[in-house]
């Protein structure tokens, strides 16, 4: 990329100072003749000129454009299906649920949405829920948690951090898990059914393992009382978050996925960067090589509608997506790489032109007169 020259400036020989009459007795104050002190350290002096930058531009262009095309193709090959089930429309099956929402209702409101996939999803399918206009990155919200409580600390369990206010205590009992994030955990249940052409509904197996970061699940989040399987006892004397239907120790029947180490909970606790976000909900594992994970055809999504978003004009979505090595579907990177690659290539051409037209004249007159 750079034309470079190693110009190690040689230190000139150590010629001893004027031979004083006193000889060695005279303490000379002559500065040390070291390369560092004389600012003559050997140095690499790269020179950036049009001549050296030009190839760099071409090379960047030649590398980036293929990468960009690769990324773009990869992104395009990712199958993604998205369905909004907020229920703001009268026509939406979930309209009733969204209208009649009440925190106190004991009977869950259910709605069913039908959709069809035009193309089969071949590999593992990842099921996301998406929320819009939900400010998980609001400062008051982001800080409203107690990580040491979530790490199983007994003291924090009994005495949650002040940051959790106003979701710190309920009826003089400490809330576990405390804070606004935990309190607002997403609690819709989504079930997916495949509808055969002949009309039979088959429930699709949704795996809930592996949706959270491994380190979160195994290190950052811990139940109080360590490996004690009796979670109910561990959470005694604590209150459930006010908006929850069930206490934390009843999130799942599987003890490996219950309490603070419930993966749905952990996923929720990782606050999103932007007000429109998606979070991993379930994984649909590929069964075998013969059949696609989700074949073409009709499906139904059964929603247990617990989560109100109407009050802040939010939206709820369910997303089905396959995943590639670069993650989910996002054409941005591919486009960016193609664009930057093209710009570099274009600049290379322009520079080459300029270099040829003006560079030569400069060079010829550089001969010192």
């Amino acid at each position: 990329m750079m034309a470079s020259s190693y110009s190690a400036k040689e230190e000139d020989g150590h010629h001893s100072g004027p031979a004083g009459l006193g000889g060695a007795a005279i303490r000379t104050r002559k500065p040390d003749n070291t390369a560092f002190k004389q600012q003559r350290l050997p140095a690499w002096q790269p020179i950036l000129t049009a001549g050296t930058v030009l190839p760099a531009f071409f090379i960047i262009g030649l590398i980036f454009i293929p990468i960009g095309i690769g990324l773009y193709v990869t992104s395009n090959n990712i199958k993604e299906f998205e369905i909004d089930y907020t229920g703001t429309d009268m026509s939406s099956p979930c309209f009733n649920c969204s209208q009649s929402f009440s925190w106190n209702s004991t009977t869950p409101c259910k709605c069913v949405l039908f959709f069809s996939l035009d193309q089969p999803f071949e590999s593992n399918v990842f099921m996301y829920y998406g929320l819009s206009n939900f400010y998980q990155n609001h400062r008051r919200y982001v800080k409203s948690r107690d990580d040491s409580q979530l790490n199983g600390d007994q003291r924090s369990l009994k005495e949650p951090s002040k940051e959790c206010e106003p979701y710190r205590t309920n009826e003089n009992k400490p809330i576990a898990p405390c804070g606004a994030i935990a309190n607002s955990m997403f609690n819709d249940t989504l079930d997916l059914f495949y509808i055969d052409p002949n009309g039979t509904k088959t429930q699709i197996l949704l795996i809930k393992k592996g949706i959270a970061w491994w380190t979160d699940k195994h290190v950052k989040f811990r139940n109080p009382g360590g490996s004690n399987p009796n979670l109910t006892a561990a959470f005694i004397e604590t209150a459930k978050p006010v908006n929850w239907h069930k206490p934390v120790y009843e999130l799942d029947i599987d003890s490996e996925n219950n309490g603070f180490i419930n993966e749905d909970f952990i996923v929720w606790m990782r606050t999103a960067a932007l007000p429109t976000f998606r979070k991993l909900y379930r994984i649909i594992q590929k069964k075998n090589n013969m059949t696609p994970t989700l074949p073409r055809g009709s499906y139904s999504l059964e929603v247990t509608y617990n989560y109100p978003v109407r009050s802040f004009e939010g939206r709820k979505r369910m997303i089905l997506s396959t995943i590639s090595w670069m993650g989910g579907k996002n054409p941005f990177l591919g486009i960016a790489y193609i664009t930057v690659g093209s710009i570099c290539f274009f600049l290379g051409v322009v520079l080459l032109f300029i270099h040829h037209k003006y560079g030569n004249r400069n060079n010829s007159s550089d001969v010192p007169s």
Partner: protein
Amino acid sequence: MICSLTICGGDEKRVDSRTIYVGHRPCPDTEAFIPSKFCDNRIVSSKYTVWNFLPKNLFEQFRRIANFYFLIIFLVQVIVDTPTSPVTSGLPLFFVITVTAIKQGYEDWLRHKADNEVNKYPVTVLEDGRSVKKESEKIKVGDVVEVVEDETFPCDLILLQSSREDGTCFVTTASLDGESNHKTHYTVPDTEKDLQALPATIECEQPQPDLYKFVGRMHIYKPEQEPAVRSLGPENLLLKGATLKNTKKISGVTVYTGMETKMALNYQGKSQKRSAVEKSINAFLLVYLCILISKAVVCTTLKYVWQSKEGQDEPWYNQKNQKEKDTNMYLKMFTDFLSFMVLFNFIIPVSMYVTVEMQKFLGSFFITWDKDFFDPEIQEGALVNTSDLNEELGQVEYVFTDKTGTLTQNNMEFIECCIDGFQYKHRDTRSELDGFTVTDGPVNKLQQKEKEELFLRALCLCHTVQVKEAGSEEVLTDQVDGIDGMQPQPEEERGFIASSPDEIALVRGAMEYGFTFLGLESKSMKIKNRENNIEEYKLLHVLNFDPVRRRMSVIVQTKSGETLLFCKGADSSIFPRVKPEEVDRIRMHVERNATEGYRTLCVAYKQLSAEEYAVADTGLREARLALQDREQKLMAMYNQVETGMSLIGATAVEDRLQEEAAETMEALQGAGMKVWVLTGDKMETAKSTCYACRLFQRGTELLELTVRTLEDGRLKREEKLLELFCVTLFNVNLKSWSTANQDYGFIIDGATLSLVMNPSREADASQYRSLFLQICQNCTAVLCCRMAPLQKAQIVKMVKNSKGSPITLSIGDGANDVSMILEAHVGIGIKGKEGRQAVRNSDYNLCFILPQFLYQFFCGYSQQPLYDAAYLTMYNICFTSMPILAYSLLEQHISMEILLDNAALYREIANNAMLRWRPFLYWTVLGIFQGLLFFFGVRFLFSNPALQDNGQVFGNWSYGTIVFTVLVFTVTLKLALDTRHWTWINHFVIWGSLAFYVFFSFFWGGIIWPFLKQQRLYFVFANMLSSVSAWLVIIILILLSLLPEILLVVLRKPRGPHSRQVYLFLPFPF
């Protein structure tokens, strides 16, 4: 002043003088012995003590805008609920304050040590007839102190006794005013014999800082006699800090001690020179402060606009707590504003001052270490007195230089003389007896010989030269200006010591022609004449040289009883005092010599009759004893005595140019600096020196503005001056338009300058000055001759305060240059390195904070920080500061050799080219571009936060970490792109910083930190690296943000006449 004298009347004496009892002995005839209170002899140059260090130093540091600002931010963070913890701004502030405090504390500790060394230095004090060893700080006013050779004086002393027979001693005041020549000081007459029981009092003025002024009176009481009164002048006063030379031992009585000594008074109240860089940094900071405030205002406004919408402010999932609900709306707005301020406060780089300071501090070491500055003759390298001004060296526009000793070697050689109108030149071949030949015209041998001898006697007598004592062990190693004793000398060769090398040259000149000065012994001067007979003269009076009178005289008495006055001095001061008919013959020679660049002196004499002498004698004595206005009285007396003389001849002394003076001058001019020579010499002499050192060149058109050109019968001087000004200015402007490369030289003399500076009508002053400046600024070289020291300072001050306030540099060696040096921005310096690069931090911080600002639009204006607190804190201190420091210290855009060969390259950096608004704007725009790029690049990536190949999603801290990683890499790589000179230190620091960032991020995210409330970054960095998309976005964003920089390098068009060469070496403009 005058009125205070009249009003105070009798009190005035008590106020203006102090009485000292020599040896603390009560004296007869005086009122009761009252031991007066004077301060002790402790020198305190240190600023702090252990007790007041903390408060005082903190106070000083917080007076700096940036520090104060960060203190305020810190306090806001402590008091108000803010997005970031107080640690984020407290820690950098603490770091900065600590580093500075350590530096200042260390410097003060050094001062303490130096003070202690001085204060505890053992001195010998005569007490009750015994010598007592004491610590220096215990000396009291009135103590009689003994000092031996090569020791420094512990306090200001009146010399009472010297081991030298003639009652003199030699001192060098190198540490006081930089003059390293030997100066002669005299004992007070009649105090020689009996110091142990000398009943005497000294009355002298109160301490004052002028090194060259002292008036006092000594009363010596003798039993049954009127007390003898002796006058005391600066020649009797030995200053603290000066060193005794060439004299075995002296005794003196203490008059001023400790902080009242002239040395201490001179070091007090010296204002710290503040560099222009710091000022411009402050200006830039102000701009950033404005950006900061406007950002905070925008965010606060938008926040309340956004919140006014139903359900946005307090959705069900994010309720406020009770306290927040209760807070008053306006108070909340205010706290919100403060919170935004805190959030964006990092836009102002806290570490910039530290980086700049460290750069200057360390940079000064490079100057000290530079072996090219090392002078093998005096075994000393360059000394940096203040590190604050290093970078000014790269900004010098005006160079003021003294002529004698700076441009020239101040190593005088007697060239020729002119006696009675005939020119005498020294001939190498000693064909004639005296080797002294008339080179023009026939001579009446006999009469001429008489004149010759008179002239040579005058040269031998009229001076203050001392003969260097032979046999002194130090003769060989003692290296002092004006001593001719460097080599072992043959017996007939003598070493001389004098305050001015001219005098030595003259005495040596006379020696060449057969008249040898043997020395001064107890008031009688001995000379050996051509016949090898010893002649003795009684020295009656020395009328000392001073720069105003520009002459000196001696009054001697010959063996035969004749009283003679010999006077030598500048022609202008001699000619009016001799018979006019004698002048013409000699003037011609003097002027010719002057044009050849020699220093000329005229010699005159007069015979004093007994009556005349008696008048002069009493007059001089009285004047010397006067306590008030002694200077004026002496001056009047001198002028009275030195009249009606007859001119004998003139001398010409050559002062050779310094080695490579001409090359240096050319280089300075090539570098676009304007060189002004300020000298006390004659115009002709100075002019020829200027030609010799190529300050004026053949093509240079000279504009003269001197007394001679002003003399016009019709007009008054001032009117003529104005007219000339206008004509000259018109010429200069006209010609500079028509012919591009015409150089102008401008010559002005002291008398004319004083007309310019102090015209009779006050109203004209500013007009004259601006005209004068306009002319000077259009000239490449300006020569000011016949300057008084104060005028030199006036000129420097005038230029310094002119439009654009250019940076000035003064070079000089003598006492007459001190005021000029103090006045200029830069004392002395030859080579500059610009350290302003450190200021680029400012754009680092813009692209650091801009994403944080943009993030507010996406988080409901809730002041949510984008980056983790650790990153916020460490960004300035750890991740970016070291490469900047290394870069600013070690960068050599252009190699030393090329720099030395092409002085014109200096033009590129001079005039603050590196730190003007244009580059600043460029950095700001670039910073904004990069900030936008970083934020939105990642923003589009996060439109689908499922970035890992296992479908898992990233959160807000991953977002911030990606942006921050791009940021750290971009700014460091940008610096790497700018680095033209990669030493191993640069490699180490740049790659080390990046490695440290990666290491730190792993480490910080790898552990559950028990002291943290939130484990925000737990494994965020590692997870980020496991995502291919994150890698790809980081790479492309870094590349894209570096693209403008690279492009600019390649597309930059050469500018200006020298730029093609520069273009080759200077591909990076900023």
